């Protein structure tokens, strides 16, 4: 373990202009692709978890090419905590809304009493809302796991 660390320090992999420029151009497209993957859950073999991992990997890519301080300038820890809690609360919020309107927990067909679209259409819409919540939570937890494991707890240096 110690010789690996010495070797990594000697090689001094630091800033590289080519990597930084190409990553800066690629990140918006990766995030757009992740959004597509979440939204197309009904028509192709993707969904909330897969899109959340893609969105989280765009943040990890930025932390790899630049350093941790630049990444937290763009997506701060406070925004990370807010996003993960918002994702979890969207899911349980939809379930509780269905329960308050008279049906069971997570019974999307009773949302028909709010806006009349038809029970089958509301079930499709309910699946979509729930997948958005899952995608947000997974995105922020992937970024948080990488930050914690890569910097060893103290969020100042590392990778």
């Amino acid at each position: 373990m110690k010789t690996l660390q010495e070797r990594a320090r000697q090689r001094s992999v630091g800033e590289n202009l080519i990597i930084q420029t190409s990553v800066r151009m690629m990140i918006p497209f990766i995030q757009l692709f992740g959004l597509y993957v979440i939204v197309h859950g009904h028509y192709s073999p993707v969904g909330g978890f897969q899109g959340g991992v893609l969105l989280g990997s765009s943040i990890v890519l930025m932390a790899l090419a630049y350093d941790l301080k630049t990444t937290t300038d763009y997506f701060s820890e406070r925004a990370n905590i807010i996003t993960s809690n918002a994702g979890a609360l969207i899911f349980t919020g939809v379930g509780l809304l269905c329960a308050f309107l008279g049906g069971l927990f997570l019974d999307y067909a009773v949302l028909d009493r709010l806006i009349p679209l038809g029970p089958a259409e509301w079930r499709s819409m309910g699946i979509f809302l729930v997948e958005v919540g899952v995608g947000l939570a997974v995105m922020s937890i992937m970024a948080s796991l990488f930050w914690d494991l890569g910097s060893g707890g103290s969020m100042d240096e590392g990778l």
Partner: protein
Amino acid sequence: MKALALLATVVTGSILLYGTQDFPAWGDPTSPASTHLSEYYIENAVEETHAPNLVTAVLGDYRSYDTMFEMIVIYCAGMAVMGVLRRSKE
């Protein structure tokens, strides 16, 4: 030590392979896993939920309670790593 581990692995593997005698053949459409409830999902999921992807329809509508707890599992893993690794600056 490694010889003992290899022996334990071979014994466990042979017990598991002996247990696959009771499994249905691969690709059998009348196996117990492919009847009873799976037929109901394949026949009725599209007209009840208007979602052509059967896996998303089962995961997001018929079994959405499991998906909620799975999201809670990821959330708890993130919190656990934060709790184990973060140190206060002193």
